[in-house]
């Protein structure tokens, strides 16, 4: 009898514990710098406190390893329930069949918050929406107003202006411009920004064949190699950090980067009002300024019903304007809102750093509206883009021109061949 009673008690305890146990969600993300991890933790704490039935935890990962680690973890059943992503990364996991379409959920969110269409486009294909856009990054051209004044130049509008500006800015103390030529993602991004401003934004034809090898691309590579010639001698090994260091230390007159604001501010760049930001110049006058943009999103990796609901609750909460700005400002000046009400959110604009650099950030948000991402444009999205972008084939083609000394036309033709091999 006694035994029975204690067993019943145990059963009640267990079942009530099970009942009350919150739905656990694990989140992987690649925002590993300490201040971002800390900010995300603050967000999670606030969410978990206000939602006792859900418990979200984070595991920061690094972009360097996640391409190998996430598929291995998912295949082995050790993966997360949701993961932050960029458009290039989504096809890798989608091929494993774990990524859930969030089309209905996104539609609901869109009616509330209004996504910038360019942020949804790269996740919408194969009859589904494969991630909820969360934050955007778009590339801009950064300069110093005082240096431009000193050299008597105005903000370049066209490629010709741009090259002239770089030549004028070059002195014994400063390189006119700093653009990367490393076989690395940063170079993919800068060359594509130039391509997108020279009518070469499409990598694919509508039937999925590659159209990289065309006169517009060749012109863009030719122009880019002239910029590289005016850059510091070590641009072959540059990543984003070197470019920022070069600009912030006044060794580079101009750079292309998503945001330099926090580096500029904390590493002695100068007065906030001296920091100039402009759209990437276009090939011909009067053209529309394009740029590369990375709408980061969150993917759902589980088909468990309770977890899916918890995921939707969490993401809805995150996109609420009163929370959203705080989330974006995990790296002030770098992460731009993807929703209309987010772009007006008090929680975004009240950050001290954002207040300080308000004009620059407003320009960056405006520029991000024309954001494109290679391989994810005009609905022409094909699986081979994952291998093309992961192998940095756009950047490799830059090196064929700047390192091997091939003509732009030869390099682009060879680049198309390599891409076709990668796409096989």
């Amino acid at each position, binding site marked *: 009898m006694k035994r029975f009673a204690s067993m019943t008690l145990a059963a009640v305890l267990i079942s009530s514990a099970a009942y009350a146990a919150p739905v656990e969600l694990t989140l992987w993300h690649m925002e590993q710098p300490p201040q971002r991890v800390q900010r995300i933790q603050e967000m999670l704490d606030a969410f978990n406190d206000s939602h006792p039935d859900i418990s979200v935890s984070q595991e920061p990962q690094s972009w360097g390893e996640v*391409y*190998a680690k996430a*598929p*291995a973890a*998912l*295949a082995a059943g050790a993966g997360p329930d949701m993961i932050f992503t960029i458009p290039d990364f989504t096809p*890798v996991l989608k*091929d*494993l069949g774990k990524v859930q379409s969030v089309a209905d959920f996104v539609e609901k969110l869109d009616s509330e918050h209004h996504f910038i269409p360019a942020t949804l486009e790269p996740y919408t294909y194969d009859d589904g929406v494969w991630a909820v856009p969360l934050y955007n990054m778009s590339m801009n051209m950064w300069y110093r107003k005082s240096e431009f004044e000193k050299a008597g130049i105005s903000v370049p509008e066209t490629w010709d202006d741009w090259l002239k500006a770089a030549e004028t800015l070059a002195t014994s103390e400063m390189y006119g411009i700093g653009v990367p*030529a*490393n*076989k*690395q993602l940063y170079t993919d991004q800068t060359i594509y920004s130039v391509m997108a401003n020279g009518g070469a934004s499409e990598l694919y034809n509508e039937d999925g064949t590659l159209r990289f090898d065309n006169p517009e691309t060749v012109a863009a590579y030719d122009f880019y190699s002239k910029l590289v010639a005016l850059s*510091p*001698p*070590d*641009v*072959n*090994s540059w990543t984003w950090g*070197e470019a920022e*260091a*070069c600009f912030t*230390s006044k*060794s580079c007159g101009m750079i292309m980067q998503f945001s330099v604001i926090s580096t500029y501010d904390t590493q002695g760049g100068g007065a906030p009002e001296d920091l100039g930001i402009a759209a990437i110049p276009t090939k011909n006058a009067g053209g529309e300024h394009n740029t590369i943009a990375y709408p980061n999103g969150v993917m759902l990796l589980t088909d468990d019903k309770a977890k899916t609901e918890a995921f939707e609750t969490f993401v809805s909460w995150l996109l609420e304007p009163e929370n959203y700005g705080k989330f974006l400002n995990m790296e002030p000046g770098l992460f731009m809102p993807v929703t209309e009400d987010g772009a007006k959110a008090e929680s975004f604009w009240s950050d001290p750093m954002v207040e300080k650099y308000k004009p620059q950030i407003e320009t960056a948000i405006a520029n991000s509206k024309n954001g494109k991402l290679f391989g994810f444009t005009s609905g022409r999205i094909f699986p081979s883009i*994952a*291998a093309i972008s*992961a*192998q*940095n084939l756009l950047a*490799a083609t830059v*090196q*064929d021109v700047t*390192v*091997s000394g091939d003509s732009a036309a030869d390099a682009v033709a060879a680049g198309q061949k390599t891409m076709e091999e*990668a796409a096989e």
Partner: protein
Amino acid sequence: MRNSSLLAFAFVAPAMLVLLLILGWPLVSAVILSFQDVRYVGTEPHWVGFANYIKVLSGSKLLSSIGLSLIWVVANAVLQTMLALAAALALNERFRGAKVARTWIILTWIVPTVVVVMIWRWLFSTSGGMINPLLIQMGIIDRPIGFFASPAGAFATLVFINSWRWFPFITLMLLAGMTRIPGDLYEAARIDGANAWKRFTRITWPLLKPTLGVLAVIGTLLSFNVFDIIWLLTAGGPANGTRTMPVLIYETAFKGYRLSEAATVSVIATILLLAFALITARALDREEN
């Protein structure tokens, strides 16, 4: 005899078990993979026979990466042996602070490779880097240069960085070998009137050769497999000038999403290395006997 076999088994089995589990099984699974068509981890495999081998062997990437790996191994071996031999000979002498120097010679070896990479990336850069200003001040160059700007330059710079990290290890092994040379041999040579150079060529060098032999085998295999320093600094560039075999394997598997092809390249690499290891091991045996 029976007893001894049993004892030997007890002594050898635990180590073998670990090796079999951690290295043997993945080796087998790589061989299996090389006959399949897996692209991403976790997708359904199909058997394709020797298709991967035919594809890999007929492409140009493999051959160039084998060539680069060969140069890599030789260049590292030469530079590291020279540095290490100089260091070991110096540290084997008696001088004030010799003990401290022998302890701290390992300093560059205890630095994790990721950290090594960041140190040199910063030092070689044109923003904040010390190397360019130093060379300018010494009058060697008059404008900052890019150390990774050309394939050959990048390759040489990587060899330098990798050797900087690894030479203390070889120094220590050589020092250990040198201390095993009986001191009275040198005394006898001295009495015979042999000078320092003679003592080195007649005593130190021949008696160090077994140590150097083991180091040559293992050092070659270890430096062949160096991956993270190259990947993190140049990712095989510029213009594929530093794409050694491990870099090619990683790139094929995790950037090109062709896991089976990567496995094929690694099986080929293993066969090459194994042939090298067995030939040198046999040569070493002969010398020992």
